[in-house]
């Protein structure tokens, strides 16, 4: 009956392993924790989790040796004086929180910087769009005028041959209504149209470039916002390099 109650109380897995932790003496747990910290396998987070699992591990995971090591790994800059009366774990927590604030501020600054770049790119894009519209209008006007002048040219050529009176007089009207030197103006217009088209393709390129820059900036912004708090100044490389083969590890007296 007792067994049954026991079984009810714990999950299967816990029951299976129940007491496993108890099978190791304190010094072996210490060895495991120290080794874990020294090889950068265990982090502050892991130690905190362990400290919440049971009383014994709470005691063992709080030990100064462990947290001093973590301090030297994660916050090497600050040299602790011998007058530090706080426990290494508390010191770690303080540095951790300070560091977090610093990172938060840095992130905010980065965000503001990128946002102002985005603003700038957007403004430039509007400008280019405006110019494109203008240039397109110019182009349209020139094309229209050119059409008209070509009609005049045709009319004046047609006048040279015999035509029915109605047509002839209409053509005469067209030619007389035109006050500009046709040939000259046609050439000028053709040049203008060419130029407009060049400008337009230039603006299109510029718009694409500016747009690319805008998109890149937006991408940077979303990245900064997604990973606001990188891990501690440590790259993964330096963390991995500490997974030593055990030669440099501090030895704990076995007995």
């Amino acid at each position, binding site marked *: 009956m007792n067994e049954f109650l026991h079984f009810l109380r714990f999950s299967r897995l816990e029951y*299976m392993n*129940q007491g496993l932790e108890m099978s190791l003496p304190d010094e072996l747990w210490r060895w495991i924790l120290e080794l874990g910290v020294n090889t950068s396998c265990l982090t502050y*987070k892991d130690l905190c989790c362990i400290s919440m699992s049971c009383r014994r591990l709470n005691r063992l995971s709080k030990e100064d040796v462990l947290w001093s090591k973590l301090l030297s790994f994660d916050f090497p800059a600050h040299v602790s004086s011998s007058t530090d009366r706080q426990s290494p774990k508390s010191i770690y927590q303080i540095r951790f929180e300070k560091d977090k604030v610093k990172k938060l501020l840095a992130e905010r600054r980065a965000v503001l910087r990128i946002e102002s770049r985005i603003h700038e790119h957007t403004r430039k894009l509007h400008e280019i769009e405006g110019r494109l519209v203008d240039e397109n209008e110019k182009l349209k006007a020139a094309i229209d005028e050119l059409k008209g002048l070509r009609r005049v040219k045709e009319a004046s050529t047609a006048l040279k041959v015999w035509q029915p009176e109605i047509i002839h007089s209409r053509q005469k009207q067209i030619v007389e209504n035109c006050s500009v030197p046709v040939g000259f103006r046609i050439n000028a217009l053709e040049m203008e149209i060419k130029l407009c088209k060049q400008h337009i393709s230039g603006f299109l390129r510029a718009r694409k470039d500016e747009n690319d820059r805008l998109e890149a900036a937006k991408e940077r912004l979303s990245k900064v916002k997604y990973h606001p708090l990188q891990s501690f100044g440590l790259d993964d490389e330096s963390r991995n390099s500490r997974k030593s083969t*055990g030669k440099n590890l501090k030895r704990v007296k*076995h007995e």
Partner: protein
Amino acid sequence: MAEFNETDQTPTVDPKTPNLGDSTTSSQPKPEQITTIDVAVPIPDVGPQLQVVVEEFILKSGSDDEEVRTAATNELRDFIEHEEIGITTLLVVVKYAHEVKNVDLLDAFCERVADLIKDKKVVEVREIFGIVNDFTPGEEQALRYEHPWAFED
């Protein structure tokens, strides 16, 4: 601790959790196992494959040649990484290594244990090691208040 015969042992934690299918392993080593090497303390019953590996390693780790020792250590670590060794077995070897004072063996297996703790949540750690939560609810609450800085983000 009462023996409890389990036939299906699907772990409820993430796949890294060792296979509990060590059918014959109990948490007490059986010292009557006779090995082919004359060791002061016989290697406990950890299954035939691991037994051989540990024996070999102990042999080689006694060598004077550093290269032999290093190679043996690397081999051992490879083995540990690729074979799913049950947590019970791991701890048995840890205790054994401690007893025979073989530091390299101890380190190799302790690191594996540390690996199992890494990145786990509190409940998961308890499950893996069968840790009995001896905190009162009030104490647990207090602990949670103590540690939020470690768990933000």
